[in-house]
C-alpha cells in the first residue's frame, strides 16, 4: 500500500485517513525505512496526526506539521518544508490530507512539487459514514476530490468499520462495495484496512489484500497509559 515513494491519503471527512497514515508510517519505520509523515489536515481541529508526535518521534518518523502554539490552531497552515521534502524525497513520504474536497484543495497548492511518477493517491472509503453510504457516494467523492485537488486518484483503500461494533460482515461488505466503486472508476482497491483483532476472521473473505491496523486514534477513555500523545487525539499527559 505504501510501495511508492510518495503516498497521498485523501477521502471523505472521518473516513480514517489519519489512522491509516499513522499506522503506515509506524509500520514502515519498524521495518527500518526512512519515513516522513506530513499532516496537511486543514479540516478537523482534533484527532490530527500531529497529536501523535511523541509516538512518531519515538519510532523515528519525521513529522511535518505546524509547531509551537500552532500545533493546536484551527488555521489552514501548510508548513513550507513539505515542498522541500517533495522536491527531494528521502525514503518514503506519506501525506495525510484533510477530509472531503475542502481538505483536498490543499493538494492543488503543491501540485508543482508532487512527483510525476512514483506516487500513489489513495482515497480512503468507509461505507458506514453518512457521506458515503454506497458505491455511488464513493464515486462522487473521488470525482469531487480529483476536481478540487487537480490530482489523479490511483486507487481506493476500503476502511469500512463501526469502531467497537465492527463485525466481519461489515468489513467484507465494505470491501465488496469498494470494489464496485473501483470498477466504475477504473481504479484498483489496493487494500482493506482491518483492525488486528479482526484480521484472522476476515482474511480469505476479502476481495483484495489486507492492511492490518492498530487503533491509535482514540478518545481519552479508551487509551492505555503507555501511549504518550498530545491534543485530544487519544490522551494528554
Amino acid at each position: 500500500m505504501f510501495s511508492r515513494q510518495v503516498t497521498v491519503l485523501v477521502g471523505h471527512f472521518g473516513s480514517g485517513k489519519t489512522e491509516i497514515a499513522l499506522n503506515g508510517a509506524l509500520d514502515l519505520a519498524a521495518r527500518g525505512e526512512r519515513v516522513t509523515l506530513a499532516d496537511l489536515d486543514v479540516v478537523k481541529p482534533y484527532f490530527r496526526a500531529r497529536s501523535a508526535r511523541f509516538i512518531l518521534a519515538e519510532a523515528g518518523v519525521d513529522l511535518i506539521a505546524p509547531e509551537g502554539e500552532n500545533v493546536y490552531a484551527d488555521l489552514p497552515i501548510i508548513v513550507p518544508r513539505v515542498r522541500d521534502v517533495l522536491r527531494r524525497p528521502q525514503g518514503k513520504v506519506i501525506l495525510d490530507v484533510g477530509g472531503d474536497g475542502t481538505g483536498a484543495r490543499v493538494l492543488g497548492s503543491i501540485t508543482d512539487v508532487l512527483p510525476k511518477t512514483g506516487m500513489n493517491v489513495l482515497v480512503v472509503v468507509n461505507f458506514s459514514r453518512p457521506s458515503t453510504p454506497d458505491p455511488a457516494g464513493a464515486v462522487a467523492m473521488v470525482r469531487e476530490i480529483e476536481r478540487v485537488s487537480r490530482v489523479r486518484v490511483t486507487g481506493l483503500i476500503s476502511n469500512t468499520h463501526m469502531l467497537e461494533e465492527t463485525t466481519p460482515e461489515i468489513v467484507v461488505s465494505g470491501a465488496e462495495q469498494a470494489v464496485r466503486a473501483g470498477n466504475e472508476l477504473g481504479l484498483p482497491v489496493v487494500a482493506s484496512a482491518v483492525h488486528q483483532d479482526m484480521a484472522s476472521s476476515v482474511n480469505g473473505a476479502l476481495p483484495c489484500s489486507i492492511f492490518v491496523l492498530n487503533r491509535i486514534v482514540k478518545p481519552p477513555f479508551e487509551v492505555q497509559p503507555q501511549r504518550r500523545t498530545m491534543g485530544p487525539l487519544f490522551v494528554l499527559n
Partner: protein
Amino acid sequence: MAKKLMKGAEAIGEAAVQAGCHLFFGYPITPQNEIPEYLSSRMPQVGGAFVQAESEVASINMLYGAAGAGERVMTSSSSPGISLMAEGISYCAGAELPVVIVNIMRAGPGLGGILPSQADYFQTTKGMAHGDFRLLALAPWSIQEAADLVQDAFDLADYYRNPVMVVGDGLIGQMMEPVEFYEDRQPIKELPPKTWASTGWKRDRPKAIINSLFLDPAELERHNFHLKEKYDLMERDEVRFATYGAVDSADVVIIAYGTVARVCLSAIEALEQEGIKVAMVRPITLWPFPYKAVREVASKAKDILVVELSTGQMIEDVRLALHRPRPIHFHCRLGGMLVSPEEVIDKVKAIKAGTSEEVQHA
C-alpha cells in the same frame, strides 16, 4: 434506520432534522463548526432553511423570531459564542419561546483555546444571563446520547415553552461513534398545538403577541411567578442521572458528567480488578441537578470525588446535595488538557491512603 458511524456534530445535526427542526441559524466557531456544516447541506434536502447569520447575536434573535412563529429551531455554538447569545436566551425565556441551543464547550475564559472543557457549568446552570430564568440543560456522554438528547430537547422546549441547552465538551462535537435513529420515535411529552404562536391573526382568536416587556410591575410579578411554576415542575419531573459501579458500599463515590464520566468509568473498572470499590453518579441534567441521587449514592462511602474539566464549578451543587459537610476531593484538568483514567485511579488510591487533600469548605 441502520446504524451509521457519525461525528458528534453530524449526529447532533441529524438529530435536529429527525426531531422535525427545519430551521438552523448559527455563526461559526471551533469546535462545533461541523454542526452548521452538516445542516447547511442537510436542511435543503428536507425543505428546511440554513442561515449563516452575521453574528451570534443575530442567530439567537433569528431563533426568537422563528420560535415565535411556532417553528422548531436550533442554533449551536461554543463557549464565547454562547456568551454573545446570552441576552437573546434571556429574551427567549422571558417570551416563553421553545428554542434548542447546543454548546460544545471549549476552554476559556475569553477566547481561551479550541480544546475540550467543561468550564461553562456555572454559565449553563446558574448565570446564563439577566433576569429570573432557568435553562434546562442536558449533558450527553456519548454520541448516541447526544443524538437522543437533542431530540428530547425539542420536546422539552415545546412542552415547557422554555430554552433547552444541550451541553457537551469539545469531544462530543468531534469524536466518532456508531449512532442509530429510530423511525418510530414518539415525543417524550404530550405536546398541545402551539395556539400561542404568532402565525397571522384572522380575527378568530386573541392576538398572539410574542413579548418579554412587561411595564406594569404587577403583571411582571405575575409573569415571574408563572415562570417559577414551570421551573418547579422541571425540578420535579425532569431530573436525569445515571449511576455506575459499586452497589452496596463503596470506598469512594465519584460525581462526573459528560465524557469525563467515561474516563472515570474506565478507571472504576480498572480499580474493581484491584478490589477497590467505586460508585459514580453521572448527572445527565446539569439543571435540574440530581441532588437526591447524589445524596443517596454518596451515603455509600465516606469520601466523595468530583472530577471535572473546570476548577470545580460542580462542587457547589455536590455540597448542596450532601446537606452536611462531608469530605470532598477534587481532580481536574484545564485549558483543553483531558483527564486520563490513570489520573483518576491514582486519585482514588490517594484518597484511600489518606494522602489526598480535601477541598476546603469556606
